[in-house]
């Protein structure tokens, strides 16, 4: 099999990535600007014997993919702000019950209905803390279609590796923009499949007992092991427990399995960082403007570099600190009121040298917007 080249929307690139990763169950509810993901999969999934179901609401969609994951399927749902809010309860359930699933959130303007057809990046913190209680989450993002594809594959791989929900934080610009996508040949990119238990029938299977490498082998519903899945605190068999020792270990496990693997989970790209005096930190469609601006200024011998984050959660604090150690100033470029900015300020040694270049008016931030701020920081005036 060869690579195939397509000219697609970002949402279609997500679909291609999901199919490449082995998605075989999708449940969703129509919402702008993510709907193309559902539309494409309604046609593509049955072609490969997979299942697509349009549920009655966003909540049900999230619940349905969790149910389907338990029968051994690779599952996806896609949504945007208001739908992402509604899904939070069940995302918390997937965190607690450790059920692999992928949620694509194609971000738009918020809060509330905001602006469905215009871009925003305001769901960064909601991805982290949208559901209640202590937990950890993985959130990935991308600024171009090749990376949308790659990060979607990564999302499925990480969901299986860590038995956790993974959020894809795309945005309206990336979702609806069209550009070239090269789909790798089968086998070219590694796919992580469901790790199933080797415990034979009749032998005590403990679905929440991690192996030495930290992974928890699963058993499909309908297969030989009958166990319990609950959103309550539970023991290693999945049965409710209020034993303080068990509860303490469970919650620490849920957080540690992700936070302690930040190095393995971190994905990023860097542009001209080696000698950069000014560093732009960005992600998603904002990063396109940041990269464009940096390239232009490099031609004028200005030492500007870009750190493009492709994983937002767990936040790669150590990476950011190291990369920014010698910078005169750091500018976080994002389309919200400074959600990643706060993380960067917390990560670096000198938070006072971190600035925000943002737009929150539904328009894509431009290289000119960033350049203006940078000039002010440099003391050159606009």
């Amino acid at each position, binding site marked *: 099999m060869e690579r195939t080249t397509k000219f697609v929307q970002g949402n279609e690139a997500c679909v291609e990535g999901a199919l490449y990763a082995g998605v075989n169950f999708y449940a969703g509810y129509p919402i702008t600007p993510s709907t193309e993901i559902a539309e494409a999969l309604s046609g593509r999934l049955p072609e490969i014997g997979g299942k697509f179901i349009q549920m009655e609401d966003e*909540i049900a969609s999230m619940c349905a993919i*969790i*149910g389907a994951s338990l029968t051994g399927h690779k599952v996806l749902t896609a949504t945007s702000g208001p739908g992402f809010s509604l899904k939070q309860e069940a995302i918390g359930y997937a965190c607690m019950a450790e059920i692999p699933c992928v949620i694509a959130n194609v971000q738009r303007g918020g809060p509330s209905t905001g602006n469905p057809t215009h871009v925003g990046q305001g769901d960064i913190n909601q991805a982290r803390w949208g559901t209640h209680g202590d937990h950890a989450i993985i959130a990935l993002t991308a600024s171009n279609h090749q990376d949308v594809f790659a990060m979607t594959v990564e999302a499925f791989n990480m969901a299986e590796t860590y038995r956790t929900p993974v959020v894809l934080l795309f945005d309206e610009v990336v979702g609806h923009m069209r550009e070239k996508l090269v789909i790798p040949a089968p086998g070219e990119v590694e796919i992580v499949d469901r790790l199933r238990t080797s415990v034979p029938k009749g032998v005590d299977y403990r679905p929440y007992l991690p192996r030495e490498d930290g992974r928890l082998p699963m058993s499909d519903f309908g297969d030989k092991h009958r*166990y319990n899945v609950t959103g309550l605190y539970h023991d290693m068999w999945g049965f409710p427990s209020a034993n303080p020792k068990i509860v303490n270990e469970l919650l620490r496990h849920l957080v540690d399995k992700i936070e302690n693997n930040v190095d393995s989970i971190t994905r990023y790209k860097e542009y001209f960082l080696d000698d950069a005096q000014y560093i732009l930190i960005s992600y998603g469609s904002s990063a396109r403007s940041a990269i464009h601006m940096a390239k232009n200024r490099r031609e004028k011998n200005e030492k500007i570099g870009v750190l493009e984050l492709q994983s937002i959660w767990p936040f790669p604090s150590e990476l950011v600190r190291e990369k920014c150690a010698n910078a005169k100033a750091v500018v976080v470029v994002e389309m919200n009121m400074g959600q990643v900015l706060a993380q960067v300020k917390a990560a670096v040694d000198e938070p006072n040298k971190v600035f925000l270049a943002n737009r929150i008016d539904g328009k894509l931030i431009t290289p000119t917007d960033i350049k203006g701020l940078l000039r002010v920081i440099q003391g050159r005036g606009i």
Partner: protein
Amino acid sequence: MAVQDYLRQRFFPHMWCPGCGHGTVLNSLLRAVEELGLDKNNIVMTSGIGCSARISGYVDFHSLHTLHGRALAFATGVKMSKPELTLLVPMGDGDALAIGGNHFIHAARRNIDITAIVMNNRIYGMTGGQFSPLSGCGIKATTAPYTTIDNNFDVVELATAAGATFVARTTTYHAKEATSLLKKAILHKGFSVVEILSQCPTHFGRKNKEGDAAQMMENYKNITAPVGSKALEENPALWGRGIFVERERPEYCTEYGKIVELAMKGAAK
């Protein structure tokens, strides 16, 4: 096999109050499963939140104890992804028809092959006795100290209108009938609903002076009559018992199987 063989006996005695009807529902349901000779490995029980929802922890099936009201949404994902499994979804009245009302009517509309059991005690028991959408008017509850003014759903009419293809009602007093109806509901290909009136002596009974568990059950004998009986015809105030709807309509997973066949043929071209 004995009924106890379908239980996770290590968790007994169960957590329900003395005389709680939910234990009888469990009893009747396990007898239905036993009499049908179903393979435990082929059954998934999905439940929501509340007293009723704890039922899934006690059965030796694949068990999925989910979120308040969402049992049917989870069950839809399980069933759709692996249609050969038998899905049993017991729910409380608030669980099924307040917070889970939307999922209930849409599961019925799709006619997906799931057996929904509404364990109707007309009260939120786990939280201490608040009125539910099945309480009806004139009921005392901790959130209705002056009695309720909320009308109740009729589960049978709601399920019927929403498209369920098997709809039945019985009570914990009529345990034999419950087993017989549950057997039919499980065998039925499509969305089946069995409402079982189930006493809550601790909250509903005490607040509304209905006596102890046995008295509440005896009351079920007095306020119900079989569907098609003369008693029911003559007294519309009685609740009907038995099968209200049994009809054939295309089942959702079967229909989707046809879509897959069609799509795969198209893709092969």
